């Protein structure tokens, strides 16, 4: 702590250079905050997941259907508590660009399987008794200003009705919330019976199953058991943890995590060069002064810490301000983006990750100049005053 005023004074030596370096770090960390929020918005919306749930789909691909009769066979397997099915409806509301997930489900058992979906009791009852009823996530309801009692027409290029129409109409009877901020509140769910009766083809078939296992520790064994049960049938299955299944869906948009990592990697690499150059210059300019410090009695290690302290202070200042500003900017952006990206927020775990990056940046940019300063021979350095 006694060295802090010395470190701070050194940073003030070239105020403009320090200011510009800190500004570039600030910009990098604001970008980090915004990109993490975008990734959260794109991947968080489909993160309904539970360690105790498995997804069972057709072995070939998700678009191949499975028989509805599989439900009873799965539930008869040891270790399986229950099984519910869903089917990809692939529709849109009003315009193709207004896309959100819709699935036909068996309401009661579906809600039992997903306790993270919060639906008021009276709305649940209304859904159970309304054959054409549907429930919609709060985010999408807000996006399209939909309310209970509205009639919601959904067009689907996949599921043509028996009468040749591609428009399905649903009565909105409930709006659900998620237990956690990251839970999906964008999808629409409606009665499987209503769907199965109305569709022109594929009757008695469903998209995939979600099964709840009795013991999450046995999930892998149960997945194998399920797949074995349907081995060599016309509809072989592939069972996997819900998270892996969800990630598979997200990958259809693109590998968001990889894209974010690449952009952030480029940004941080640039910042590494900018800050590293500033630090190297700062050390080169005061070789003589470092020699004086060593002559006075500063050890090599103390000189190394002084230089590292400077680079860490730059990173902490820039990173701290950048992350702080990101915390202010993201909520400000969230409002206008709420219709497109309802789950646009800066997750706490990414904030912590950012703090970690600050430290890494400080150490990485200071290490080489600090090492050079440490290796300086006093007599040589003093000649350069």
């Amino acid at each position, binding site marked *: 702590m006694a060295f802090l005023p010395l470190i701070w004074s050194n940073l003030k030596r070239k105020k403009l250079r320090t200011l510009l370096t800190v500004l570039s770090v600030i910009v990098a960390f604001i970008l980090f905050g915004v990109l993490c929020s975008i990734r959260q918005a794109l991947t968080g919306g489909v993160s309904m997941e539970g360690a105790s749930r498995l997804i069972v789909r057709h072995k070939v691909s998700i678009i191949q259907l499975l028989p509805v009769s599989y439900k009873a066979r799965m539930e008869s397997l040891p270790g399986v508590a229950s099984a519910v099915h869903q089917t990809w409806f692939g529709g849109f509301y009003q315009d193709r660009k207004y896309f959100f997930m819709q699935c036909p489900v068996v309401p009661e058992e579906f809600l039992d399987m997903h306790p993270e979906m919060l639906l008021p009791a009276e709305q649940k009852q209304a859904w159970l008794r309304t054959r054409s009823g549907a429930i919609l996530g709060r985010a999408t309801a807000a996006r399209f200003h939909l309310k209970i009692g509205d009639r919601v027409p959904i067009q689907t290029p996949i599921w043509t009705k028996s009468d040749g129409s591609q428009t399905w109409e649903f009565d909105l009877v409930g709006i659900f919330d998620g237990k956690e901020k990251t839970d999906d509140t964008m999808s629409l769910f409606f009665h499987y019976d209503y769907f199965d009766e109305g569709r022109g083809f594929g009757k008695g078939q469903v998209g995939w199953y979600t099964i709840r296992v009795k013991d999450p520790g046995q999930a892998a064994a149960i997945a194998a058991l399920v797949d074995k049960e349907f081995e060599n049938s016309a509809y072989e299955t592939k069972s996997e943890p819900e998270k892996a299944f969800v990630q598979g869906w997200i990958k259809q948009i693109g590998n968001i995590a990889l894209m974010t990592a690449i952009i952030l990697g480029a940004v941080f690499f640039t910042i590494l060069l900018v800050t590293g150059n500033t630090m190297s210059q700062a050390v080169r300019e005061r070789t003589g002064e470092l020699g004086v410090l060593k002559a006075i009695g*500063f050890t090599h290690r103390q000189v190394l810490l002084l230089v590292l302290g400077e680079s860490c202070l730059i990173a902490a200042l820039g990173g701290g301000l950048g992350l702080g500003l990101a915390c202010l900017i993201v909520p400000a952006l969230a409002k206008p983006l709420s219709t497109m990206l309802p789950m646009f927020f800066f997750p706490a775990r990414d904030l912590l990750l950012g703090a970690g990056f600050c430290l890494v940046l400080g150490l990485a940019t200071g290490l080489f100049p600090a090492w050079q300063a440490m290796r300086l021979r006093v007599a040589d350095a003093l000649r350069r005053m």
Partner: protein
Amino acid sequence: MNTNGTLVDVDGVEKVFRRGMEEIHVLRDLRLEVPAGQFLALMGPSGSGKSTLLNLIGGLDRPTRGTVTVAGERTDQLSELRLASWRARHIGFVFQLYNLLPVLTAERNVELPLLLTHLSRAQRKEHVATALGVVGLTHRAGHYPRTLSGGEQQRVGIARAIVADPTLLLCDEPTGDLDRKSGDEILDLLQALNRQHGKTIIMVTHDPHASARASRTVYLNKGQLSDQPLD
């Protein structure tokens, strides 16, 4: 310190620098004893090895051969780490070009050696005030080096050198960058430190006027010492 009162004992020291394949013998079989409390002037032409000798005594460099003992410690045998802390305890350096840190005020510059001690902030402040008082610069404590004259900067340099109460003051041309008046003031100060505070001082100088203030003068020429000037 030795039992006979010798503070600095340089014995059979050689210093060889290598420039490519060439070996340059800067100091040859050099012997020097400096008793505690002496004010020694070290004179000699440029390139005679004065600063090299000063660096060896101050533990900034190591001899190629021979021994350097200061305050009873064989400094040529100390590790880098121990040498640094030894310097902090025993040596105060005064440089020709003052070598103050431009980003620090006079008092912060003087405080630097105390950052390596366990003194509290208040204690450090007290020591700094005392050192600045000794060199007569209390009123300039908050000034940055660029706002001080050369003489004042050198006095800050001396305050920095004495603030941790070192055993030995090593001054490398302390008046070399000053006009006669300022130089005299610095020499007065060094003399006072020697006579009133008992500081042992080794001063490298070109200036006979400066060496006249010392209690003893030795001459270095072609890597060897003598008590008489050559030519």
